[in-house]
């Protein structure tokens, strides 16, 4: 009898350890176990739907109240921010106006042929030829020229492919009201960033808030943005995407372009 009970206990234990226990998602001090189910398919589907909704929109505009942390040498994070207005006409026109909290104004314009960037207060601007579509212009501006264009990725039409490739974990957090709109609060993880997004639960799947954690950077700074005033029938004239430098505005270069020119000149000088 005793042997039978012991045998049953042992058998149950083996079945539990081999089949049941591994099926449960486990954490050890907050570290996710690799084999656990990591991406909630419905949440991922909601995110992709939201991004594809934007990439299929022919023209739209919105405003972002954005802020970010800048880590100081003493370890303290200081917040900066401003109001960012974006207007997009696919496939090849973007205008971005940023007014920082200190009152300084920056302008980015892409007209399908050239990229313009200007500091209104410093009375300077730079331009570079970049014929192509919005995706190519944003990639060139942020990667090759190493210039910041917050939320630039949001308006790229290839961002949904990027999230499918990069996200390794994520899911639904809760429902929350952002600027009076009931939203699904989703959280996702990639190798280099964690991010949270609040997507309108009813009607068009609009993003109402975005938070990005740069978890591998010193101090783990955040970028935060409240997105509002979405308009998918904006009154945008062609003149909105024409950059006219103000009188006496000084044209300057983008540093990477300038350095490339210097290297080229040095090479050509060396050949002579």
């Amino acid at each position, binding site marked *: 009898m005793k042997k039978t009970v012991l045998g049953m206990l042992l058998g149950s234990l083996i079945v539990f350890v081999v089949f049941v226990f591994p099926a449960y998602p486990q954490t050890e001090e907050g570290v996710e176990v690799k084999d656990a189910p990591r991406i909630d398919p419905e949440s991922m589907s909601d995110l992709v739907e939201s991004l594809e909704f934007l990439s299929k929109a022919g023209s739209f505009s919105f405003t972002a109240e954005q802020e970010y942390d*800048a880590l*100081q*040498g*003493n370890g303290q994070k200081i917040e900066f921010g401003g109001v960012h207005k974006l207007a997009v006409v696919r496939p090849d026109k973007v205008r971005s106006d940023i007014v920082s909290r200190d009152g300084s104004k920056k302008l980015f314009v892409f007209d399908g042929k050239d990229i313009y960037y200007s500091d209104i207060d410093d009375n300077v601007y730079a331009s570079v030829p970049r014929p192509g579509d919005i995706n190519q212009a944003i990639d060139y501006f942020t990667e090759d020229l190493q210039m*910041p*264009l*917050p939320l630039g990725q949001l308006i790229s039409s290839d961002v949904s492919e990027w999230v499918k490739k990069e996200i390794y974990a994520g899911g639904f957090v809760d429902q929350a009201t952002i600027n009076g709109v009931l939203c699904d609060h989703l959280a996702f993880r990639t190798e280099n960033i964690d991010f949270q997004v609040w997507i309108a639960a009813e009607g068009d799947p609009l993003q109402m808030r975005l938070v990005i954690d740069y978890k591998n*950077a010193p101090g783990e*700074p955040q970028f935060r943005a409240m997105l509002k005033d979405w308009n998918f029938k904006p009154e945008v004239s062609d003149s909105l995407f024409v950059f006219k430098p103000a009188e006496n505005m000084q044209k*300057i270069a983008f540093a990477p372009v300038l350095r490339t020119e210097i290297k080229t000149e040095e090479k050509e000088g060396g050949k002579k």
Partner: protein
Amino acid sequence: MRTGKKFIVKLLLFTVIFVFLVGTLETYARGKGSGRGSHRSANRNISRQGPARTGSMKSSDFGSHSSRSSSRNVQRSSSHTGSQAQRKQKAQDYKAANPDKAKDFQDKRADNAGDIQENRQDWKDTNREDWQDYGDKARNDRQEFYDDNEYYRYDDDWEWGDNVEYPVGAMAAVAVGTALTVSAFNSMTCNPTTVYVNGVAYYQCGSTWYNQAYQQGDVVYVVVDTPPGY
């Protein structure tokens, strides 16, 4: 009846004077007080840079660091690397902005080296303990300074000792392509002259020429070759 009118006139006069005085006092308090309402210029020592400024998700836009797995060490290491890069940039800023000082320090260093050679034996025998004491004291002083001045050392990894380090490192001529922040450029010991060549502004300081350019969203001064004709 007349007394009543007089009383009303006095009351009105009193009210007007009272309101005027209160208004004046408030205006004075705003201007004189904690600075609220008055224009204060931004603290340029506070960095506005960092990956979060890009608001980007792609690591290629903000420069990713290695995996978070051994987060403590990785963070410390990357932070240290960042500090080194910042220090290097500051050293370049300093030597570009102060070529004369850099030369002075170079000469002084050479003199000091000669002195040190002559007195090396004395140093070994008599001053080792003194230097040890000095080191301890300096370290304590620096810590106390930081404790007292937490809000005055925002700028990256700036430390008292770094003021000495820059000129020592400022031996070579400033490399073409080196970038100076606007504040570093404005604090140069020379008064830069501006010339326009083919519509491009060149700024000359001594034998060094600069162009303005955008770097990571900010205007900087980049060291360039001498423009044609100069």
